[in-house]
């Protein structure tokens, strides 16, 4: 299944809310995308900025981000593939 496990950095911007981390991390585990590193920064603007590093194939990461985008509190999701560095 996960043949080409490339590094992807997923950046997520959400409105700050108590349960949003649980909703986000639940999707990662449901789609079997293992989190390698994650950092969260809460801005003064009421927004939270997530940066998540995963090793997974493009298709799984794409499916996951499509679902992340549906979370009501999520304002933006981007995938940065290591190839683009």
């Amino acid at each position: 299944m996960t043949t080409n496990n490339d590094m992807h950095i997923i950046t997520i911007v959400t409105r700050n809310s108590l349960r949003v981390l649980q909703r986000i991390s639940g999707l990662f585990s449901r789609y079997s995308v293992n989190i390698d590193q994650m950092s969260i920064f809460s801005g003064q603007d009421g927004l939270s900025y997530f940066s998540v590093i995963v090793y997974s194939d493009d298709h799984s990461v794409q499916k996951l981000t499509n679902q992340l985008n549906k979370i009501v509190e999520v304002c933006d999701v981007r995938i940065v593939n290591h190839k683009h560095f």
Partner: protein
Amino acid sequence: MKITGAQAIIESLLAEGVDLVFGYPGGAILPTYDALFESKERIRHVLVRHEQGAAIAAEGYAKSSGRTGVCIATSGPGATNLVTGIADAMLDSVPLVCITGQVASSLIGTDAFQEADIVGITIPITKWNIQVSRAEDIPNAIAKAFYYAKDGRPGPVLVDITKDAQAGMMEFTEYAKYVPRGKKSTQHKHSDMQFIEIADLLNNAKRPLILAGNGVGIANAEEELVKLAEKATIPVACTLHGLHSFPSNHEYFVGLLGMHGNYAPNILTNEADVILAIGMRFDDRVTGNLARYAKQAKIIHVDIDFAEINKNVRSHMHVQADAKYAISHILRFVQSNNHKEWHHRFKHLHDQEYEQVIKAELSHKGDMIRMPQAMDLVSRKTKGEAIVVPDVGQNQMVAMRYYKFQKPKSHISSGGLGTMGFALPAAIGAKMANPDREVICVAGDGGIQMNIQELGVILQEKLPVKILLLNNNYLGMVRQWQEMFYEERYSFVDLVSPDFVALANAYGIKARKVTSPDELEEAVDEMLASKEAYFLEVVVEKREKVFPMIPAGSAVDEIRLS
């Protein structure tokens, strides 16, 4: 004006146009029940017998009316009892607002009596949920709940409200419906160019096929779909939830897709050159083996949920939009066409299925009744105009195969989750939303007993729901799989049931049991003529199997007639 949080819940519901809720009281929701008592004249509350019944009744109400269903439960076990219904609504895109009581905010996290983290529990099965612990936050939370239940692809939301928030006082001014700021759009802007390209594909297709799903009915796009099919002479096949969105007596209707669907549309999915999939999500029960699904076809996928695009099946073109919008725009550019030979292929395969399966079932003469004979009778006697609410299993497959739906919002079924016990409470919800339509609950002897307690609602509310029990004395669908794939090792599918007629009578419901084919018609007539609730138990052939069937793991064109 100062009011309590509980009163604010009621005012908010009223402001959202709610006049009916399904629920069950308990400690942590007592303040809200006190407020409901005061507002009895304005909001009808239906007391279910189990919270699962409340969630599913609210689904039946929502699916059959297009409005948002509302259910209320207490904390802890009340809330966890809603879970199956919420998961069902999530998979079938049903707009549902669940309001749960929660222990007082000072007790949260202390393992207090009847404390359950229902917000945590329901995260994966809700579109959105929230816990509210201050009275003044209630109206806004409820406004958001109603907004998100319906926004884009509908689904369930949950608002968990602590007891102190319900009891607390707040200043209630005017209720403001939720309008999101900087909204993520669920509907992208589309250019005419995109629809012209889609129409081009359809115009040049030799063997085009439309697959209609749940999204057609949710968007009320039934008329547009008929227009599109007629203008471009394209055959229309439906998914389980698409079934009531295209009249089954229409000459372009080619039947039901999927595991127990019709022969022709399954086989010809793998011959079509262009497939227009509208508001459907290529569920595994529809596609069978994905590696051999419609590989030859150019697929155009219309869905409001972007996450469905390329999820299971790669599309050549897609439109992220609701079905009504997309179909009306495609309609502008399609040309009339002639696909006589292609339509003839469907007819030819249908005739084969008719001879080998349908006619064989319906004309069978034996001493036992067969499920299809009962459903066919009900279909003809109601002219396909009733609301039919099947349960799960063989009865469900037979109901949708043999009931000839003519009207939208008439096939209320648990498709995604396949929840046994769905039919009875969902039929109750559907009847409340449609008091003037005939509502028929169809169930097996297994499923009826999963929420049988809801007969109490029929008794208390005097609801003229008709119940057709197709009793094969088995967990029939599981038995079928054990016969076909587990060497007839019938592991725990044999059930001893109570006297259903006596049981229904105990709830004050008229009931009758038929065993002989000669009595069937007269009994169905009696059931349909009844002005009150009626429970008809039809004892059917014990060891029937539902065909056609695509065995799990097989391709759609490997569908078997026997």
